[in-house]
């Protein structure tokens, strides 16, 4: 937590530098830019702690917290030739190492010989649905944070590999498709006493997109094969008490070692109205267990003000009796307001009412037997780009 004050200082400095446009150097070949969020969250829930995603080891306890949503990202883009460019992005946020240590989020070379084709090689974003690639960039969306019911579990942070994108016009519309292959490492916290390290050695996916007028549609499929190592007090207990290999046992129970994600999404943006809806189905190894997640959001822009409403939900379908208490059933209603102070700085306020029937992996510090409860969150955010 020592690094939180440093990050906050950096964020304030970035803001006080003014809402500057992207800094361009060396005859426009190099572009330096960045994004960030100063987030404050207030929870009224004293029986469990709220997390933004399962990469966060500790959650927001009852009262105020600045840890959940605060982040800073810096990016450099270099145009090497007309066909070749490279992008490097580092980001600091509260993540699986338990602090704000920076991570390399993007580092790729792009070859784009034609508007209809591009190849990227290196570290890429996790592009599993319509907005997963940009879920950390608060200025890009109306909400304080993308819905936790949807983005809270089974999300990789990045992919090391390659993708190809094909784009074709069809009349006035556009069709584009992307294929990706690579690998990734991720750590998920399943509870305070159990964490899962994913060595996702085989990630394969693709999506098909159709853009017509104000509409964007997407259908996608991704398969992630991983070696998963479990650690923490609960894994040790399984080792000792039952004298069995905790990894094998927990892999068998969770099915995390093979994950398939199907995704459907639609977005509409015309005049003042913005609509978004995404549904994902995450199927775990044996195929008998899956997680449905989704949300619907509507926002209406009036000059600098953008009020919005969102409904999201997640539910595990499991033919067994939830052997390790990892099944989730939760839905959230959110209402909020974004105010664009300048063209590079926005203030947001959001109220979330969360109904948790079964917390599964989505909460920390859970009191024994906590379920079927309501939580109210109030969040304030300042999002900026430069």
């Amino acid at each position, binding site marked *: 937590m020592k690094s939180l004050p440093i990050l906050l200082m950096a964020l304030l400095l970035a803001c006080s530098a003014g809402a500057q*446009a992207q800094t*361009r150097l060396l005859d*426009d070949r190099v*572009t330096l*830019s960045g*994004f960030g969020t100063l987030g404050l969250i207030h929870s009224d829930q004293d029986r469990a702690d709220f997390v933004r995603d399962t990469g966060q080891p500790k959650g927001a306890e009852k009262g105020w917290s600045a840890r959940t949503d605060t982040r800073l*990202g810096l*990016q450099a*883009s270099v145009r090497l030739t*007309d066909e070749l*460019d490279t*992008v490097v*992005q580092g980001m600091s946020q509260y993540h699986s190492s338990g602090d704000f240590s920076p991570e390399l989020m*993007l580092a*790729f070379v*792009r070859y784009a010989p*034609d*508007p*209809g084709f591009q190849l*990227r090689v290196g570290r*890429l*974003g996790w*592009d599993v649905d319509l*907005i997963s*690639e*940009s879920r*950390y*960039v608060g*200025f*890009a*969306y109306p909400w304080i944070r993308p819905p936790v019911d949807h983005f809270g579990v089974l999300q990789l942070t990045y992919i090391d590999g390659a993708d190809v994108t094909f*784009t074709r*016009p069809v009349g*006035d519309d*556009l069709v584009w498709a992307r294929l990706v292959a690579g690998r990734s490492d991720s750590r998920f916290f399943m509870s305070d006493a159990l964490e899962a390290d994913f060595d996702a050695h085989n990630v394969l996916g693709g999506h098909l997109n159709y*853009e017509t007028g104000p509409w964007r549609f997407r259908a996608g499929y991704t398969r992630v094969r991983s070696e998963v190592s479990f650690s923490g007090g609960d894994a040790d207990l399984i080792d000792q008490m039952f004298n069995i290999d905790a990894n094998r046992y927990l892999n068998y129970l969770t099915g995390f070692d093979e994950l398939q994600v199907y995704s459907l999404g639609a977005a509409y943006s*015309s*005049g003042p109205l913005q609509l978004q809806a995404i549904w994902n189905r995450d199927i775990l190894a044996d195929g008998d267990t899956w997680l449905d997640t989704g949300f619907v959001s509507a926002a209406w*822009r009036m000059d*600098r003000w953008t009020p919005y409403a969102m409904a999201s939900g997640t539910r595990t379908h499991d033919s067994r009796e939830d052997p390790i208490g990892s099944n989730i059933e939760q839905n959230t209603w959110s209402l909020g307001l974004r105010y*664009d102070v*300048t*063209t*590079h700085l*926005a203030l947001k306020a959001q109220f979330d009412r969360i109904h948790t029937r079964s917390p599964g992996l989505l909460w920390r510090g859970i009191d024994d037997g906590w379920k079927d409860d309501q939580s109210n969150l109030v969040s304030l955010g300042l999002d900026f*780009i430069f």
Partner: protein
Amino acid sequence: MTRFTRWIRVTTIALLFIGTTARADIAIVINDASTVRQISHSEAVNIFMGRYRRLPNDSVALPIDQAPIKARFYRALVQKDMAEINSYWARLVFSGRASPPQQAGNSEDFLDIMTHNNNALGYVDAARTPPHMRVLLTLSE
């Protein structure tokens, strides 16, 4: 002196009024050495919003933003203000998907890029189309 002041005031107001009414349309232009004669509204959106940057003559389009009339242009093109346009680009830039148009800081830079590149697409006030530029599409404000 009083009469002179009144004359100045009336002339200024008249000029302001003329200036306002003259600010009617925005023209998307290209160097007149290009073989491109016109583009559709959806092609203009695809090019300036980074979706698909191909000109009708099959060459790669190089869109240029011009700071002084950028806000007017995007209001006319996609009915969005600059905060919304920046929000749109934040999604694409910070996911490494696409880059916004090259920025011309002033009209000299703009003319320099436009005259030296036959695939550069820019926009100007329709009432002040520079010489040697062909209008491809006119957007009503």
